[in-house]
């Protein structure tokens, strides 16, 4: 508050000026024209508010000391994020996604040429993983088209094949509003990719659009639960018989809040939510930190088997890595029971969420690149890499980061926020407030009004198309004819990256 302007003096002046103006305008109203009394009244009201701030309220020191001028600070503070975003932030300094990253997606989504000129704005002296090209690029026509079949390891009759390496990562109806769900589902269908339903229970709006879905079973098992939160076999069997449900994902943990459950407050449980999620109205519902069936490695692996037997379609798990030794032990248990999930989705700690405590969002879990490397490495070392597929998630929103993930062992790519940006997300960071200004993470009809489903669905399709275009160009530049040959030696990994550290750690300690 210091500096060359003495706010204390100014505010003392203002606190006197406001009532004086009221008196002045009163005289004007009395002797000149009654219209002055519009201003008299305004300044009288301001005087009252000011008296309240200065003498009655006790919570805010600033208002008690400075009165109505102190409020300016609160107003400026409340519009601060927008001001910084629009006026002052550098193109490369915003988080989680800076303007360069966002605008690449916006351009892809609108089908505008995404070429840039003059040079990269990134810092090339710093520690960032880059991709190596080949001296001898191949012809795009010679590249074998991407294809991946989930469930082939178990010889499943209802295996599921994807022909593009992208899928929409879990976002529930609840975190997203109805229109966002519809636009995403429709867009995913137009693009020919699968979409994860998130843990929002029966995916009514997803199914209505007729795309291919991965049903996520959260720790509360919304949609397929008994009242105590355990699995209801019949409900799951029935849901998996739906033709649009192609796979099931058992969520063990999530990058933005690993090890943390959640609470669905009773105020949010509308009649519809109660039906879709299978929970009673008028009572808070707890999402536990783990599935009640899964209390150790043995029971967790057995639970995967149980779900596989009921679902009859590919069943995978989603988790964020904490200790690599925990993961190693689970893999050993899988080997012992000879049960493997059909895919393992690795969610990096940098993942997004509708709402999570700050401590968990910022402080917990392993970032994607080292975690992904470790998961792949452990599976290879245990000789079971061919028993399952790996999906990677965590800020994989542009082609180069996706390529890096594929090189580190991922078979396919999940993105949540990439697709949100494609829907028109402006990174207002209000997903938990029901006030998303672009109608994506809100249920407020007046905010969803601006989101035109058909229009945004096209954006999703364009985005996927743009990513796929880049993908084959990059394969060609790297001299790779088969997507299965994207390997880690394709990457340039500087010494002081988290990834390099993890590679060294695993090398030095075979028990990790």
């Amino acid at each position, binding site marked *: 508050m210091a500096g060359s302007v003495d706010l204390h003096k100014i505010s003392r002046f203002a606190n006197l000026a406001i009532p004086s103006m009221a008196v002045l305008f009163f005289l004007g109203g009395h002797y000149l024209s009654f219209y002055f009394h*519009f201003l008299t*009244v305004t300044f009288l009201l301001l005087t009252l508010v000011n008296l309240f701030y200065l003498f009655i309220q006790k919570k805010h020191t600033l208002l008690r000391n400075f009165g109505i001028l102190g*409020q300016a600070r609160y107003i400026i503070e409340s519009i601060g994020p927008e001001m910084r975003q629009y006026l002052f932030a550098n193109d490369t300094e915003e988080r989680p996604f800076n303007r360069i990253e966002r605008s690449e997606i916006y351009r892809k989504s609108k089908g505008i040429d995404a070429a840039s000129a003059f040079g990269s704005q990134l810092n090339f002296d710093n520690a960032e993983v880059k991709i190596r090209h080949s001296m001898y690029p191949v012809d795009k026509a010679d590249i074998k088209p991407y294809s991946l079949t989930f469930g082939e390891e178990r010889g499943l009759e209802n295996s599921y094949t994807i022909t593009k390496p992208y899928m929409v990562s879990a976002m529930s109806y609840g975190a997203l509003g109805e229109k966002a769900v519809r636009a995403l589902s429709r867009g995913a269908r137009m693009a020919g990719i699968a979409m994860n339903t998130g843990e929002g229970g029966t995916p009514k709006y997803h199914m209505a659009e007729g795309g291919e879905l991965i049903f996520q079973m959260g720790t509360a098992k919304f949609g397929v639960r008994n009242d105590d939160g355990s699995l209801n076999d019949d409900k799951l069997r029935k849901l998996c018989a739906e033709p649009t449900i192609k796979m099931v994902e058992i969520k063990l943990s999530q990058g933005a809040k690993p090890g943390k459950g959640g609470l669905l407050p009773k105020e949010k449980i509308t009649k519809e939510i109660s039906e879709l999620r299978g929970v009673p109205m008028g009572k808070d519902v707890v999402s536990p930190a783990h599935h009640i069936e899964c209390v150790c490695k043995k029971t967790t692996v057995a639970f995967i088997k149980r779900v596989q037997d009921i679902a009859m379609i590919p069943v995978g798990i989603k988790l964020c890595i904490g200790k690599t030794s925990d993961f190693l032990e689970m893999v050993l248990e899988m080997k012992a029971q000879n049960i493997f999930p059909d895919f393992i989705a690795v969610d990096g700690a940098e993942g997004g969420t509708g709402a999570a405590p700050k401590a968990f969002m910022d402080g917990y879990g392993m970032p994607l690149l080292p975690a992904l490397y470790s998961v792949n490495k452990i599976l290879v070392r245990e000789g079971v890499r061919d028993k399952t597929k790996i999906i990677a998630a965590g800020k994989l929103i542009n082609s180069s980061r996706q390529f890096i993930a594929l090189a580190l062992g991922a078979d396919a790519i999940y993105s949540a926020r990439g697709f949100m940006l494609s829907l028109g997300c402006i990174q207002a960071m209000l997903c938990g407030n029901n006030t998303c200004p672009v109608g994506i993470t809100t249920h407020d009809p007046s905010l969803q009004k601006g989101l035109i489903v058909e229009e945004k669905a096209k954006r999703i399709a364009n985005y996927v198309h743009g990513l796929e275009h880049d993908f084959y160009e990059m394969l060609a530049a790297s001299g790779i004819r088969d997507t299965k040959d994207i390997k880690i030696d394709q990457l340039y990994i500087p010494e002081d990256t988290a990834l390099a550290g993890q590679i060294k750690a695993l090398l030095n300690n075979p028990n990790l």
Partner: protein
Amino acid sequence: MNRSSLIISWILQLSIAAIFIPTAYFKLTGNPESVALFSKLGMEPTGRYVIGFLEAAACGLLLNPNSAVHGAILTLGIMMGAVIAHSSKIGFSDGVFGYIAIALVIVSSAIIFIRRKQIKSIARMLS
């Protein structure tokens, strides 16, 4: 806001609306009494239309639960003006309107008090 204060607030909102609907109507249609009153204030006809319009707007805001508090603030403003008019130019002797104005200042203040949490800017600051 508990149930009983919500009910009280609605009764007060409705009673303001019940007064404003006819007064706004008379002002906007040029009822001779209104014309006489605004002539005394030297605001004929613009001021009459402006105040009539503001009364109608306050009425609309008061009848919507999301904007009731803003309607009450507007009412308070208009009625403070009316009290000034009666005490400085018109006097309280002919008719009840001067006393009604005083009553509405109190009633609208009560609504603002009951619904103070709905004043968004303040609510956000005090949270």
